[in-house]
């Protein structure tokens, strides 16, 4: 999951609609299962209806602000139709809306973990920018309302991965800092104090720790040019705390200083797939370039999987299994 920019002001069109995300995920599955290409505009339509009782009443407060948008009618099951809600949102003033968003506090740094689970479309297909949109937010402090141009926020995460790497497991900790809300009655002294309190807080400290000091677990799908048997990869399971030297990878050398970084691969676990593929689970020191450890980056990362196995290796898939820093505490604790 990446926010390459530090602060992001979302317009309505920047938010991925749930139904779009759903389609991006299911279309390839259908296509594969049925062996047919997917046409979003074909004559054969499939309707999928979802219900979510937990949040069905989230928009009911709109009726208090704008009663005439929600007049009951004979054939409607509920007055809260999509049309009615959209009408109300367009109609009401921002201040009135904010007054009713009770769970949202200006000064709360909502600590959440996010999960990016769709590798195929890490970015919306129709977006020209390489900015990814969060598909699902699970918030420890209640719903985070991100609607319209109400506020901008700063996104701060505990490290980052490439756009083609999935983040699985418990996700990666990050914080969203809500900036310049339209209603904030604080004296500048209070704000300064708040700022200091937040920046020095345990929370931010823990988070940034994750970048440098902690370990990470990855899962990689590896291809080898030579045919391999199970016994050829078993030795990797026994290697503990392997020290590797990584010169700045060529793919980032244009914007990073040229240096050699020593990193530790704490442990590895192999799962044989076939003569030319195996899955490798690795627990590594934070800051390790995994792709380069697999293919060797022109021999500039040593040792590497290729040199250890005496083959030419390449990496086909990479997932982050977990970021091993115990913060924020899981919801069910």
């Amino acid at each position: 999951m990446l926010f390459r920019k530090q602060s992001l002001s979302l317009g309505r069109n920047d938010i991925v609609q749930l139904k779009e995300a759903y389609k991006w995920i299911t279309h390839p599955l259908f296509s594969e299962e049925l062996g047919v290409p997917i046409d979003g505009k074909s004559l054969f339509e499939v309707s999928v209806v979802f219900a979510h009782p937990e949040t069905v009443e989230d928009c009911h407060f709109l009726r208090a602000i704008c009663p005439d948008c929600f007049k009951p009618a004979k054939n409607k099951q509920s007055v809260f139709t999509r049309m009615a809600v959209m009408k109300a949102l367009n109609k009401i003033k921002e201040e009135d809306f904010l007054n009713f968003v009770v769970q949202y506090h200006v000064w709360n740094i909502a600590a959440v973990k996010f999960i990016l689970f769709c590798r195929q479309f890490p970015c919306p297909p129709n977006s020209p920018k390489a900015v990814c949109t969060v598909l699902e937010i699970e918030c420890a402090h209640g719903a985070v309302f991100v609607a319209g141009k109400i506020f901008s926020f700063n996104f701060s995460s505990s490290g980052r991965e490439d756009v083609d790497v999935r983040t699985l497991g418990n996700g990666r900790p990050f914080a969203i800092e809500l900036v310049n809300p339209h209603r904030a009655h604080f004296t500048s002294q209070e704000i300064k104090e708040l700022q200091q309190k937040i920046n020095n807080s345990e929370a931010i400290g823990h988070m940034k720790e994750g970048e440098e000091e902690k370990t990470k677990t990855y899962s990689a799908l590896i291809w080898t040019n030579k045919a391999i048997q199970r016994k050829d990869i078993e030795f990797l399971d026994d290697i503990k705390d392997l020290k590797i030297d990584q010169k700045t990878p060529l793919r980032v050398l244009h914007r990073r200083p040229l240096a050699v970084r020593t990193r530790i691969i704490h442990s590895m676990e192999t799962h044989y797939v076939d003569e030319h593929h195996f899955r490798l689970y690795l627990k590594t020191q934070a800051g390790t370039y995994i792709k380069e450890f697999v293919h060797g980056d022109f021999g500039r990362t040593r040792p590497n999987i290729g040199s250890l196995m005496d083959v030419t290796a390449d990496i086909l898939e990479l997932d982050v299994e977990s970021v091993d820093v115990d913060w924020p505490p899981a919801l069910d604790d």
Partner: protein
Amino acid sequence: MATQPEVPVATVAAEPAVPSLVDRYFTRWYKAGKWGMIASAGPYVKGKPCEDHCILQHSNRICVITLAGSHPVLQSGKTIKSISYQISTNCSRLQNKVSGKFKRGAQFLTELAPLCKIYCSDGEEYTISSCVRGRLMEVNENILHKPSILQEKPSTEGYIAVVLPKFEESKSITEGLLTQKQYEEVVVKRTRAATGTS
């Protein structure tokens, strides 16, 4: 050299063969040696015939200088005795030191700047040129210790050097170079010419 990995058909039925690391991230450009001079190719690399270079250009504009498959050093029967980065009394590419994000202190290279000298057991000596203008990032020290890597894996572990062209020039540096297709045509013409005169 493009090594197309073969994915066993039994496991992945519909998927095409996976492109190699070089194919995925780099574009291949070529500088043909003396014999391969074509009007559009511009200034050619001085030296013996067929001293072809292959420049791997990354999408981030970094260039890796390597030997093209047709280079004499890569032909069968050739043994490398030693490689030296001392290109003149005062200049050794090994002394190149680069610091910071902006790579200050790097030796600046023009297209014809020599990178290294390769000495072969048959007495032949070859000079490898930069082929692109830019700052020298690093030279491959691994081939000093084990010259055979250069012949075994010329496109990856056997690279010669890494050059960072100026940002403004990153597009124009390829103007004097041949595309993969043009290079292949040159090689074909050369072989025909060679067989013609023998």
